């Protein structure tokens, strides 16, 4: 299974094995990575699974879709590499992906 590294705002790292086909959000939530709330469970309805994709990986994770972009417009501390992790599907290509988490999702 692809490995994904989640880095909390404090610097604490979590390396998670993420099943292909699930989302980067789901893998984090199922392993209780603090800092990803994902209240809506991945329906793109709450904007509480915001992550920063490590710049090296941006070409592989793809771009924000338009719904995601509108949601992120209202999130805190949005950067060019901001994504909603419920919109990134885990694939073999993403083995080694690194994402950083914001200080707060609300």
């Amino acid at each position, binding site marked *: 299974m692809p490995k994904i590294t989640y880095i909390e705002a404090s610097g604490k790292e979590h390396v998670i094995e993420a099943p292909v086909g699930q989302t980067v959000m789901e893998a984090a939530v199922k392993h209780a990575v603090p800092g990803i709330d994902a209240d809506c469970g991945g329906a793109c*309805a*709450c904007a509480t699974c915001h992550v920063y994709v490590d710049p090296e990986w941006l070409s592989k994770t793809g771009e924000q879709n338009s719904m995601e972009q509108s949601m992120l*417009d209202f999130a805190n501390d949005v950067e060019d590499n901001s994504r909603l992790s419920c919109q990134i599907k885990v694939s073999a290509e993403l083995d080694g992906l690194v994402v950083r988490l914001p200080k707060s999702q609300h």
Partner: protein
Amino acid sequence: MSTGEIKRIIIIGAGQAGGETAQRLRQGGFAGDITLIGEEPAPPYQRPPLSKGYLKGDLDMDRLLLRPATVYAEENITLLTSLRAVWIDRANKRVRVEGGRELPYDALVLATGAKPRKLTLVGADLAGVHLFRTAADVDALKPHFVRDAKLVVVGAGYIGLEAAAVARQLGLSVTVIETAVRPLARVTSPEVAGFFLDEHTRQGVQFVLGGQPAMIKGRERVTGVALVDGTEISADIVIAGIGVNPDIALADQCGLEVENGIVTDALCQTSDPAVFAIGDCAARPMAHFDKRMARLESVHNAMEGAKIVAAALTGGKPHTVEAPWFWSDQYDLKLQIAGLFQGYDNVVLRGVMADRSFAAFYYKGPKLIAVDAVNRPAEYLGAKMLIQTGRTIPPGELEDETRPMKELVAAAR
């Protein structure tokens, strides 16, 4: 009761509210016993996808689980599934479960959820008549959810319309019977209801509005639904989507205050300080709505109850209450709702319905109280922030679409 005296917490109800509470208690550093008791066989899972991706076959049960089944043992949470709690003895702080075993608690969390209303009609117990609440309900329905099968949905609420949308996408023929004169009558305005009525009609759903079912026809399996006016609609499957009742049986039995749901204060504490109630079964004063008591059936409410109770029981940072939020997926439409629209006196549209992308803003006097946003995430999130902070956009400004939502929100007072 100081948090230090609490060594044993029992949570009755292993849905999203109960499951989330257990998890958050551990995350908050609670080191005592946690027992989570659920009637269903599965560990806590998300219900919203049942009428969406799970029914359609896009998501399996594994993906619905809040956490993998193995996590509960790893975190020393005693998860008792397929088990019913039958009695609460508040004087001695004990819960009796089926089979007679008694479990002691220092704090008790009731997250008993709600039970779907059954049709009270002759024939309602025929094979092919389905309720829609649990994964088992949907598993029973799925083998019959095949192309060209004739589905009748009784009740045009969100669950009924979501099931109708999936059914059309899978090629079933669908009739929705609703006793009110419009769909979604309890949950949205006539304007937005009209949009969803048009959309479903365009997708081939037949509606019988103001229709009064008289009986379910059939010998062993359902063959149709007869209406009071004498018409009959043939059916291979019937879904009852006529709402839920809060599961207050245990609260009633042990003498807690119950109105429309188990009555709690803003911190989800019941009339007994050792007992909390959260999720679909409980009513609490709504911070952003003049502290009006409301019982919400939603993921937001389930999660928020869990956060509030976990903070109270671990002495953690109190949760900042959010404006209520909801969503519904039908076809390619994402409806996102913030706030509570009841009592509005003015509705203002931003965007046009024909574009299938618009938002309806609800005002009570000058105050923005709710939004229904269809494929309009910015309007949804913007309005949610405003409702949460008690700010308002003057209604006249919303119709000007040249001004982005973000700018309107920034200027709101």
